[in-house]
């Protein structure tokens, strides 16, 4: 066998990469889209849940328990349940992804809002804020660092989880990985894993940047 500097047997075969740039880009786009949609819907669902938990503390245990239970269900099992209902669709892929964000997001929103100092809340009320005004102008901004920390963890874990949706035929970087595994072909496997990790790191850094920009007050300390 000829020792190839770069060929089908090497860890990465650049020629293949060059020929499949369009596919790789499409998969990456789909991966990002699935992540963004899942975390977005997760936030939309988590907020009312978190507010309900704070309003009626008796709900706290059942809600967090349910979210925790869903978090524990293996994604493959969940796909198995959903496919007969929603088919091999993007919806089937998104539902479990959203489910996994709920525990982290609800918990961080509740923790963030609970963490607003009592004296700050009291002085806000004493200054003449209405309930809603105080929530939007005082409580929420102060909870932002904790909420964004939750978004960060949820996003990074979703980016990793998205790859699993390949088993139901959903396009993402997971398809490259699956393709590589099926054909015992290293290049798509390395590209898929490498880009997934790169996405996760990029998301983490970008969200940290967002946090720094929207909470300038949390940076400066005497």
């Amino acid at each position: 066998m000829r020792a190839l500097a770069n060929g089908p047997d090497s860890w990465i075969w650049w020629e293949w990469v060059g020929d499949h740039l369009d596919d790789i880009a499409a998969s990456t786009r789909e991966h990002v889209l699935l992540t963004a949609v899942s975390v977005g819907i997760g936030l939309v669902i988590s907020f009312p849940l978190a507010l309900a938990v704070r309003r009626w503390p008796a709900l706290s245990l059942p809600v967090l328990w349910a979210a925790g239970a869903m978090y524990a269900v293996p994604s493959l099992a969940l796909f198995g349940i959903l496919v007969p209902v929603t088919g091999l669709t993007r919806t089937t892929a998104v539902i479990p992804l959203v489910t996994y964000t709920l525990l982290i997001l609800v918990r961080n929103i509740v923790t963030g809002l609970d963490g607003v100092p009592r004296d700050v809340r009291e002085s806000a009320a004493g200054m003449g804020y209405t309930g809603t005004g105080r929530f939007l102008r005082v409580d929420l901004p102060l909870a932002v660092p904790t909420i964004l920390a939750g978004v960060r963890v949820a996003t990074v874990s979703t980016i990793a989880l998205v790859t699993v949706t390949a088993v139901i035929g959903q396009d993402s970087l997971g398809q490259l990985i699956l393709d590589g595994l099926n054909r015992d072909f290293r290049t798509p496997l390395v590209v898929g894993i490498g880009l997934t990790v790169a996405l996760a790191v990029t998301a983490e850094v970008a969200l940290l940047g967002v946090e720094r920009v929207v909470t300038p007050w949390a940076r400066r300390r005497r």
Partner: protein
Amino acid sequence: MHRREAPLRPNGGAAIRLAHVRKHYPGAAQAAVGDLSLDVPEGEVVVLVGPSGCGKTTVLKMVNRLVEPTAGEIHVLGEDVRSVAAPVLRRRIGYVIQQIGLFPHRTVEANVATVPRLLGWDRRRIRDRVAELVELVGLDPALLQRYPSELSGGQQQRVGVARALAADPPILLMDEPYSAVDPIVRARLQDELLALQRRLHKTIVLVTHDVDEAIKLGDRVAILNVGGVLAQYAPPAELLRAPADDFVAAFLGSERGLKLLSLVTVGQVASIEGPVVDGDVTPGEAAAVMRRFGVDWVGVRAGGRLVGWVADRDLDGRRRVADAPAQPFNAALRPDTTLREALDVLINSRTRVAVLVDDDHRYLGMLTVDQIAEGLR
């Protein structure tokens, strides 16, 4: 529109009137505040003081409706506090709390501007007002763009006061405003509050557990016992002179006389004419005055001013008292000096008297230990 107006007051000058106010927290064994009636006169500093559990903070918070009373009525500037929505009421009443509660996510400037913003003032008016307040409370304007976490405790306290005064409310509520700062800063902030009050004439209700702070700051002090029972409500000097009962006496502490010393001014005490003669009298006449007072020196007056004093032995062979060398008195007191300072002068004086003059340095009289003791009765 925001303007300072003289509000209608059908209740005879009381800016805040509590009538048979009761507060029973759900589940509590006894009422936090039993049956409290109290008038806070307009433009005065009223201090609520008492041991923990006396309901003083509850009383304060019922005024701005952070706590709703179980029974009774509270009027602010003649208006039942329940007749307006709580947030609207609170924007008219300044509020300062112990932990200050500055908004950590807002700059000093935005913190101070809180209530004007809620009231919808335009940007320019807010900016002008913030600048005015910063000067008023003695804050460095360079701090305006900082965040609260970057300030010292004393600076945060000043920002808290500026924020409470931002919309120029006629009433200021202060809940243990100085217990979180060290004693030196506390004393300075207390002095600043008194100076501020001399300029602003707000109606201030201040809660503290520190009886010395109450005596120092209050025009009137309300001493509350456990369960919100009003034990005594009087100007501090009156409390110290005549505590209503054993609880009040014990709460005021053992050094009531000493505390009174810092409270009563020289002008409130009857001074004596003292051994003083005009400079053109003879040594013989001066000697008679000295004998009458039982001293070996005499004060020398010239044209209404006290020049100094002359010792008995220096008068020998002089034609007039003014011919002898006069020694200066080491300090002269004004009518607004406290008895405490007067006593200090007296102790350090060779002649064992303190000289009292008016603002034009005209001689008013003298104080001895006897007059000071008399003033404490």
